[in-house]
């Protein structure tokens, strides 16, 4: 996986227990077009507290152009922003 840290727009599901699950997101590609990526499976979820800045880390499986890909999404709790961190 390569480090990208691209801001993305996210559809996520927040359940009764306070768990957050990313569902699908879109980002602008090189041609300024929106690409939608659906998340197939969440492999791992962790909390990153580095420097006291809390971030939810999700390692997910997606399917891009018929190819199974692993990527890391991050949700920054203080700013409520989602990032495509690694792909």
């Amino acid at each position, binding site marked *: 996986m390569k*480090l990208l*840290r691209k801001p993305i727009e996210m559809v996520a599901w927040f359940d009764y227990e306070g768990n957050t699950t990313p569902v699908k997101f879109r980002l602008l590609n090189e041609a300024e077009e929106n690409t939608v990526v659906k998340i197939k499976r969440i492999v791992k979820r962790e909390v990153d507290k*580095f420097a006291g800045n809390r971030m939810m880390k999700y390692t997910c499986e997606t399917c891009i152009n018929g190819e199974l890909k692993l990527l890391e999404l991050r949700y920054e709790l203080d700013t409520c922003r989602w990032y495509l961190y690694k792909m």
Partner: protein
Amino acid sequence: MLKPNNRIIMHIDVNSAYLSWQAVYELQQGNKRDLREIPSVIGGSIADRRGIVLAKSIPAKAFKINTGEVLWEARQKCPDLVVVPPNYQLYMKCSKALHQLLKEFFPCIQRFSIDEFFLDYTGMSIHYGEPVETANRIKDRVKKELGFTVNIGIGHNKLMAKMAGEFKKPDRVHTLWQYEMKDKMWPLPVEELYMVGRKTMRKLKDLNIHTIGDLATTDVKLLEGKLKSFGHLIWMYANGIEESPVHNGGYIPMKGMGHSSTIKFDVEDRETAYKILLSLTESVALRLREANSCCGLVSVSIRNVELAHYSHQRKLFSPTNITNEIYQTVKELFDESWQGEKIRHLGVRIGELSSDEIHQISFFDGINQEKNRTLDGVIDGLRDKYGKASIIRGIFADGEIVPLLGGVGEDEYPMMGSIL
């Protein structure tokens, strides 16, 4: 009652705090550089003339860059130096996260400054095991979870723990028990001892005291003769005698408070100087009233463009916490001491604090004291509710000078004190 030597105190100190916090934050944000591995410093803005080194990385230390040094000097020593501006909000966040983590383990924690904590480990070995093992565990957990490294010092009292924390850095655990004192602490140069600064060091060198061991074995009467009660204090410290408890909750008895600021431009006229002094007085008086105290001493300090520093102070006839009354004295003091040269830095300090519950009325009280007190109360209320900038004096309306000068801009920022 426990014997003093049965206490176990730990001191936790973040290694080059500002810098490693910034480094970890940048890494988390996806930056590739690690500030800790390149020559880098945290420094104030040169344009505002606050361009000094606040923290440095270990590679920067190799270039002989010192904390407190002017930035351009540091750049001369290392042309490729990376300078990052300070970010106090981030530091507060990091400090809080560390506090939170420690609270999971220990009930008794004293926040000594933004990056230093004391904790009382007395009687906890039954639950957590040997102090050194626990310290190592905490240190590794902080590194894993929060990403920065800490030094932990362990001793029988706060002083020994703090001294142990200053040994080899980074990412280490050190002990300094009573029996190790002679080997580990006494050979160190005397300026390494807590509370011994540049000035005391010079006085001690005149007495042919060069190491902490020299100080500890000197006759205490000689030190008292030269340095009064302070001589006794540092002699006790050099012998590892110190018994203050770990103040849980962060309440530290204050002896005085003050604000000072380096000004962006050279102040040449009295009017501008007054404005800055008023702004500083506003901040100090606000803090004074927040602490429910009155002050009995006011002092003004001036640093001119040649970096010469002088100050002037006066005892008040009766203690007060009214902004206008303090400001009146501040103005008088300034007029008496200012020699008319260009000013670079101004400071206002107050001391001899007492409780504000009782007021002694006298014939010489200022007029409208009660009105002023009520006014201050209303202003404080507004500032508390709507923020500090919600109500300011008309004189600051042109925006040239910040209405409440001094401090780091973070309300809860814990400043390090000289009282253990």
